[in-house]
């Protein structure tokens, strides 16, 4: 019923209801996105970063939309008028800003806002980006209202990263408002920024004091924001719903009370997909959208025996990836043998070019000097396994299947894995493996928590497979896994380590943190980087080259990326598994036009900033009667 009121004065037919997967927000009154604790409290993606704030550039993780002033759909000059421009030695970055953009209180956005943001943050050591700006920015000048020049303290070809959003970046503060509310820059840490001032197409209309929903209303002057490059956002209202248990999401969407589900379990999607009015990224199997993030098995490279490449390879070859795929995503996976998510434009830049290398790649298993571990039949195998359930939705054509499920992965070869372990000095007694020192080889696997069923299932399956192989593995979903992971007190962690820009092949976004600069010995608390404690001179070398290459030189970026991928494929510091497939679901009753595999103009996940573009592409189905 489009005339039903969602909240007083807001009709259902004018509102798109969207899930924010963050979980209940514990500090619902705070819209201060710049403090550290905001990160843990999650008060970001309830519309604030999608609809309310803006920064210089956005990268779309998918193919993006055509828009004014750019030929690359994935790159959006948002507040900036052009791409970042560096001087020769990358010590100065100059940014031209767009004209005619206004805050929601009708104050114009200018270079002063950007300068103020950087300066304020630099004075707060516990602010996000604060320490970066303090160390990296020597000074700033604003030659005119629409230009800002960053003088950097050291050569840095990727400084613009701080203002480039794929998932998150430094958002710009409204100087006039902050100056009024903050007595000193350090007040920022307890400032609530409530109600938030918007630089995006929507303003906050109302929100739940318990942090369960946020209602945004389209600005009358939405054209004075950067969204104008794409067109008018269609829904008058956007409502974000938080903290819904999986089963409830399905019920709510079935009742047409929730238009966009960020994700549910594969089973949830399968039951939702039975409805005519429902769409997914893939219409039918494999449903989900592959995130530009990579799920991987993360062994502790600083702890024996995981410091041994052969052991890491053995762990990979003892996994029957088809079972992992089935247990987690019911087969709806996009596998990756590379240290890169198999999503966005990566097929073009990396996965196709790497096939030859992978097919030729050989390792020494001790008994076989040139063992070829790559297996291109995996997609077909998974296809055969799931076809009985999903029928024609699972294509028979090998290339199409590979595009869906991934071009290949490592062989399931317990024999080769055993050889590798023997090569590493281990022995098998009975059906259990024993380390060189005679101890039984046991692994405690830090698994995902209950909050993410699909991935928890994945970790459990990995543990089961290793146990079956003779390495007793306990999957542990303990609360302090993270802390122990941070301390280096772990065997193997399941998690994300690598995320890409999605639309852009540059690897600096994630790979930087694997630089040995950030290496911390076991027992010492890490500082948020290089948690797998990997150290490689070759890798450092590649990363140093990235740092002095032009970001806009995509060819160069991709070449360096390929070097990185070859190195990590051989050395296997982590065991990449697959992209994080987000089982999102959309209800077409009130709105249609959501992105999908055939129209991949945006990532359909609801919590990313780029999801703002979706609203410009929707079509209203049931407008309320006036």
């Amino acid at each position, binding site marked *: 019923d489009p005339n039903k009121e969602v909240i007083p004065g807001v009709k259902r037919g004018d509102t798109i209801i969207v899930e924010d997967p963050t979980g209940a927000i514990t500090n619902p009154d705070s819209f201060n996105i710049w403090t550290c604790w905001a990160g843990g409290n999650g008060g970001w993606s309830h519309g604030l970063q999608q609809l309310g704030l803006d920064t210089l550039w956005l990268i779309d993780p998918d193919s993006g939309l055509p828009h004014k002033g750019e030929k690359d759909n994935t790159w959006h000059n948002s507040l900036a008028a052009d791409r970042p421009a560096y001087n020769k030695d990358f010590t100065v970055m100059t940014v031209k800003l767009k004209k005619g953009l206004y805050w929601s209180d009708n104050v114009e956005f200018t270079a002063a806002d950007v300068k103020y943001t950087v300066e304020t943050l630099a004075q707060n050591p516990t602010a996000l980006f604060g320490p970066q700006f303090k160390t990296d920015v020597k000074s700033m000048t604003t030659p005119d209202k629409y230009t800002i020049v960053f003088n950097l303290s050291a050569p840095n070809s990727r400084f613009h990263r701080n203002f480039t959003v794929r998932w998150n970046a430094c958002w710009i503060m409204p100087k006039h408002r902050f100056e009024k509310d903050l007595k000193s820059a350090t007040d920022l840490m307890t400032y609530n920024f409530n109600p938030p001032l918007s630089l995006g197409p929507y303003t906050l209309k109302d929100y739940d004091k318990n942090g369960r929903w946020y209602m945004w209303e389209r600005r009358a002057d939405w054209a004075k924001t950067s969204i104008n490059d794409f067109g008018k956002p269609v829904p008058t209202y956007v409502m974000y719903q938080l903290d819904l248990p*999986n*089963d409830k999401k*399905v*019920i709510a969407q079935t009742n047409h009370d929730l238009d966009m589900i960020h994700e*549910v*379990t594969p*089973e*949830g999607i*399968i*039951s939702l997909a039975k409805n005519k009015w429902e769409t997914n990224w893939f219409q039918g199997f494999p449903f989900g959208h592959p995130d530009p993030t990579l799920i991987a098995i993360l062994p502790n490279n600083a702890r024996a025996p995981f410091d041994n490449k052969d052991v890491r390879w053995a762990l990979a070859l003892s996994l029957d990836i088809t*079972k992992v795929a*089935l*247990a987690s995503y*019911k087969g709806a996976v996009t596998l990756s043998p590379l240290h890169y998510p198999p999503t966005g434009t990566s097929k073009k830049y990396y996965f196709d070019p790497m096939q030859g290398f992978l097919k030729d790649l050989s390792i020494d298993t001790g008994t076989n000097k040139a063992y070829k571990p790559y297996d291109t039949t995996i997609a077909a195998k998974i296809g055969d396994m799931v076809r009985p*359930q999903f029928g024609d939705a699972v294509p028979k054509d090998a290339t199409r299947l590979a595009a869906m499920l991934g071009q290949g992965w490592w062989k399931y070869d317990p024999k080769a894995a055993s050889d590798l372990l023997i090569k590493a000095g281990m022995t098998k007694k009975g059906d259990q493996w024993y380390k060189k020192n005679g101890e039984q080889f046991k692994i*405690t696997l830090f698994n995902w*928590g*209950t909050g993410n*069923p699909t991935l*928890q*299932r994945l970790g*459990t*399956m990995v*543990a*089961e497979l290793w146990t079956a192989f003779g390495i007793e593995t*306990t*999957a*542990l*979903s*303990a*609360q*302090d896994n993270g802390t122990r992971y941070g301390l280096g007190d772990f065997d193997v962690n399941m998690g994300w380590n690598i995320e890409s820009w999605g639309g852009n092949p540059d690897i600096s976004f994630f790979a930087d943190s694997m630089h040995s600069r950030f290496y911390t010995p076991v027992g010492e608390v890490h500082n948020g980087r290089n948690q797998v404690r990997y150290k490689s001179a070759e890798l450092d070398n590649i990363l140093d080259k990235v740092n002095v290459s032009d970001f806009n030189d995509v060819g160069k970026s991709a070449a360096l990326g390929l070097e990185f991928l070859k190195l990590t494929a051989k050395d296997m510091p982590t065991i990449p598994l697959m992209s994080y497939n987000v089982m999102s679901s959309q209800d077409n009753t009130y709105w249609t036009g959501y992105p999908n595999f055939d129209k991949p103009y945006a990532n359909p996940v609801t919590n990313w900033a780029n999801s703002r573009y979706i609203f410009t592409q929707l079509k209203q189905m049931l407008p309320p009667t006036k």
Partner: protein
Amino acid sequence: MINAFTGLWKTSGYFRFGIVAVVFAVVMVVLSFFSPYKPMESYAVAADAPPSLENWFGTTSRGQDLFWQMTFALRNSLAFGIITALLSRIIAIFVGMYSGYKGGWFDKVLMSVNDSFVIMPVLPILLLLNFLLRDQMNWFYMSLMMALLGWAWDARLIRSQVLSLKERVFSETAVFCGMPTRKIIFREHMPYVLPVLFSTTINNLLWSIGMEVTLSILGLTNLNNPTIGVVIFWANQHQAMISGSWWWVAAPVIVTVFVFTGFYLLSVSINEFIDPRTRLRMKGGAA
């Protein structure tokens, strides 16, 4: 004993139901030792099959046969519950009976300790302890913890019974017979406390297994070891309730309800049987 059994069997429907449930539980537990599959082994059978002659309770999305998985789950949950119930019973009996009988400062001290346990918020403490013990956590430790948290209220109940028994003349007779305290407590008072003990045991069993299920649903137990809670946990992780695999939820729920309703009815009928008044009447006395 045998007479009592046949008598109960003939006259009490509750008892018959209870025995059937217990036999069912025992058979399940015994069968678990002969299971053709490892308890959590994935893809051992076809996934997502509804109940059929082949898979009595159906199969899970992970290709596990639910019938066989339930044999393990019931075994583990019962072992857990029974150990918890027994341990907490032992504490409750000692504290309740001695505290009630001895009285004085002994009683005061014990009851203060008892009250401290009574007021403890159980779930938070369990959660905390769970985090504390993390990978060392297994069902045995957990039943120890539950036992520690689950005796206090029952000890109070037992104590109040003993307090009134102490006032009865035969207790004084027992004193003047020269009986030592231990004997008075266990020989003279125990038969009266038995019914309370029995029903609190069943309650405690239910409570502890319920707690285990709650913790499991939150994913805080060892999820690689099947219990009733763990089976439900994995069903939830596969959204079985709304994805059509109803049997995945139904199997543990029906088995639990059946077994525990059986236990309860059994306890009701046996309790009536061991009630002093009933026993008196059976021996031919007017109660």
